[in-house]
């Protein structure tokens, strides 16, 4: 039997983040001497399947490429609710409460309501999806997500024929998320959206884990979206609300800079960001003096998703 105790930690016992990071640096520096050869270069991330031992690999997983080492993925997240600095977000996100995660389903569906993540997971067969992840900032990773196709969840909610778009909303916890507290930069909470056909595409995944383990808080726990053919900002973290809408909603980055971040945000090397090229990308964990990877249309998933956009001018609908 597991007895859960709700101990509160007095403020005096919480390590000052600065001291914490200094300690980490010292430990890192000490370890660097002994672990250096393994810490540099293309070391494939070993999947530690402690949480889900019998998980099956989804057929759309890529296997030609090596995984990005997990420690790099855990320390390189754009989580602007916490910090504009990727490394700082890792530490600050640990304050997030992810127990008893609830998702509100609303809008054009037959079964709206508040759903416990636990209950959703009971109905879903978890799989591993090894996907490329391409950020709009022109860096990329290869990540083994653990999750289920969003389509399988949508089926259980019985969408009406009027449901044309799916809107996702991230968690709003201003007491824990410093940039929400001071209303910095973006409109909070963070929102994203997909067209319904994009949302039910078999590549679109709701993830609860990565590298065989539970999703780290900085990587979007408890539940996040993964859309591998779009720029990373579409793959919204910490989803607490999913709405089915008749019309396209205004999403966070698109509202912030509509000329720079389109609604579609499909990875496309032929459409540069207004201020920088999207022709190539820096793959994390590649060594010094290694050429950048040439970015592929739809991030290499064109054969799966190009038909969704067959009649669209991708220069215009960027």
């Amino acid at each position: 039997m597991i007895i859960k105790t709700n101990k509160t930690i007095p403020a005096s016992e919480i390590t000052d983040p600065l001291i914490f990071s200094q300690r980490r640096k010292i430990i890192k520096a000490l370890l660097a001497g002994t672990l250096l050869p393994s810490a540099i270069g293309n070391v494939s991330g070993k999947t530690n399947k402690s949480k889900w031992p019998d998980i099956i690999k989804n057929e759309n997983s890529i296997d030609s490429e090596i995984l990005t080492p997990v420690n790099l993925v855990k320390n390189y997240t754009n989580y602007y609710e916490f910090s504009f600095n990727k490394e700082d977000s890792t530490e600050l996100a640990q304050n997030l409460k992810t127990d008893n995660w609830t998702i509100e389903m609303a809008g054009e569906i037959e079964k709206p309501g508040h759903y416990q993540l636990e209950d959703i997971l009971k109905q879903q067969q978890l799989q591993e999806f090894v996907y490329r992840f391409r950020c709009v900032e022109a860096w990329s990773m290869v990540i083994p997500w653990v999750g289920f196709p969003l389509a399988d969840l949508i089926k259980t909610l019985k969408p009406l024929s009027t449901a044309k778009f799916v809107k996702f909303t991230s968690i709003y916890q201003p007491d824990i998320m410093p940039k929400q507290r001071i209303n910095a930069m973006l409109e909070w909470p963070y929102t994203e959206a997909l067209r319904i056909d994009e949302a039910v595409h078999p590549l679109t995944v709701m993830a609860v884990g990565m590298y065989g383990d539970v999703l780290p808080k900085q990587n979007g726990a408890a539940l996040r979206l993964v859309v591998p053919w779009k720029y990373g900002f579409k793959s919204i973290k910490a989803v607490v609300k999913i709405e089915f809408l008749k019309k396209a909603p205004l999403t966070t980055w698109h509202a912030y800079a509509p000329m720079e971040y389109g609604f579609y945000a499909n990875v496309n090397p032929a459409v540069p960001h207004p201020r920088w090229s999207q022709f190539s990308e820096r793959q994390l964990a590649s060594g010094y003096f290694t050429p950048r990877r040439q970015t592929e249309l739809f991030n290499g998933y064109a054969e799966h998703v190009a038909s969704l956009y067959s009649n669209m001018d991708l220069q215009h609908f960027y």
Partner: protein
Amino acid sequence: MLMRINNAWIVISIGCLIPLFWLLLDIVSDNLGSNPIQAIHIRLGDWSLRFLCLTLAVTPIQTMTKWKGMSDYRQMLGLYAFFYATLHLLGYLFIDHAGVWQVIGIDIFESPYIWFGVVSYTIVFLLAITSPKYAKKQLGKNWKKLHRFIYYSAVAAVIHYLWQLKGNLFQPLFYLTIIIFLLGFRVLVWLKNRQLSKLMVPKGRLVTLDDND
């Protein structure tokens, strides 16, 4: 004034190399985070901008403190700005792009923020190659005109920095503030000198901006 090679000169020139040694130490100890190539790039860019600001600060500090010794080191600080900017450029071309010229060409063409980096570096490069005494003599009066372009270089460097960010502009705006302050100081001195010479006040002491080297 002749450049004297004394203890202070040696200490300062070695001091200017500390950021480089610090970076090398971080590289060998794998202390640059998940994207070390970008981290190197940012670090070198930061230091070239810092040395540019330091170079620009020499004359204002000297005027305010009446301490003449600093101008001896202005050339050296400027050359270190050029040194770090050169490493920044080489890092972009060879560490990040591994000398793949076709991709580099597309990257520069499609990235307006890089154009400002190119402008900034071109100016610093011209100033560095005209830095020796021989070049200064050859250029005569034009030397000073040319070397005032350092302000354009600094402003272009800040735009280069600012324009690539998604929104958090604190750092580039910090440098921009410093540059505006330094440039504002020069404008004030210029205005004051003009006023003084117009009034022809006999006792009016001209605040000098002349280089003492």
